[in-house]
């Protein structure tokens, strides 16, 4: 409904502006899906950084790109088992972690890891939008109430499943 209203008011917008915007989004999505190994590497690097600050539940973790209405986003849900102490973090830093891995420079001791490009994270846990209680996202961008049957195969969590 909202979409219909938006389109109604936007009728006067030059169609090429709309085309350009749609292309921008769809090409991002295409480019990611066409080089899954590169983005698996990216996820691997991100997780390596996160592990220096937090102990995470590797099996329940999910990181994937998603098409939202006017946005293309990297969404992550990373269950945290333990927040490391400042000493533990500094200790692993001393072993010789490359400077660039610290992203925008947020430091140990606060218990948060800042990663560029994700939507504004809550400290130590990023929520996935429109997450169904049983842990899956429905396609088509609609929310469903929790379902009691097993019709949806458990989408593969982790680096290899989600694009």
């Amino acid at each position, binding site marked *: 409904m909202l979409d219909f209203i938006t389109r109604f008011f936007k009728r006067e917008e*030059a*169609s*090429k*502006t709309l*085309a*350009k915007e*749609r*292309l*921008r989004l*769809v*090409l991002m999505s*295409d*480019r990611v899906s*066409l*080089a899954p190994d590169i983005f698996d590497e990216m996820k691997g690097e991100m997780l390596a950084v996160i592990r220096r600050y937090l102990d995470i539940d590797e099996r329940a973790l999910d990181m994937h790109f998603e098409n939202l209405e006017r946005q293309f986003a990297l969404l992550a849900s990373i269950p945290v088992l333990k927040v490391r102490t400042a000493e533990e973090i500094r200790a692993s830093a001393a072993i010789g972690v490359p400077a660039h891995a610290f992203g925008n420079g947020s430091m140990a001791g606060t218990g948060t890891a800042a990663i560029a490009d994700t939507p504004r994270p809550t400290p130590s846990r990023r929520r996935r939008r429109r997450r169904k209680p049983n842990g899956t996202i429905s396609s088509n961008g609609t929310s469903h109430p929790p379902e009691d049957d097993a019709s949806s195969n458990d989408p593969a969590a982790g680096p290899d499943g989600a694009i």
Partner: protein
Amino acid sequence: MNGKTFVITSGKGGVGKTTTTANVGTALAMLGNQVVLIDADIGLRNLDLVLGLEKRIVYDLVDLVEGRCQARQALIRDKRVDGLFLLPASQTKDKESVNEEQMRAVTLALAREFDVILIDCPAGIEHGFRNAVAGADEAVVVTTPEVSAIRDADRILGMLGGRRARLIINRVRLEMVRTGDMLSVDDVADILGREVIGVVPDDEEIIDTTNRGEPVVLDPTRRLARVYTAIARRLLGEQTPLPNLEDDGIWNRLRRLIGSRT
């Protein structure tokens, strides 16, 4: 001499690869180069038709690759232009009849005798596409200023194995660009991020010349002839300016103001 091989590709079908190959190839020959055009669309050949050479085909690419003939037997010399040759595709075999290594062997052999080789690539990204690209040093990606074509062009740019790729933007309709109903040349170049070596306006002359099998570039009085000749020069590295599309006379400008064309 060691000639250069370019594959003319696009991803999306129907954007003008074959017309471009025919016209740029003819223009290159008219500029004094020895040119071979290879139709890599086995099973759906059309380059012969566009060049008006369809009645002279005896041997084709598959015959050459399978050793049933020599290169000089398969190459059709265009009688209108010195130095222009066509290596036709087979109409009855399918694309699996030729593999990438064979294509490479053919283009390497031809490069010893010719200045420029243009490979007309089939639409899509299947075997035919892979074969056509395998034989080439560089690519020219043809697109139109439309969403699907640009999307497919972007995809293709990622499948060229690191070869240099430049763009030709085809079927540009100036009136629509002005009213904001069509993406501009700059828009397309921004999105795809490559150098543009040609901008070809939409022109009904193409339909006529294709029907007759006479590449438009053969007639220097036609405006498209200028456009393709400039592309031929830029292809070979000259920094010719892209012709100004606006510069086509008061008549057309007047018609456009009144909006008489669709």
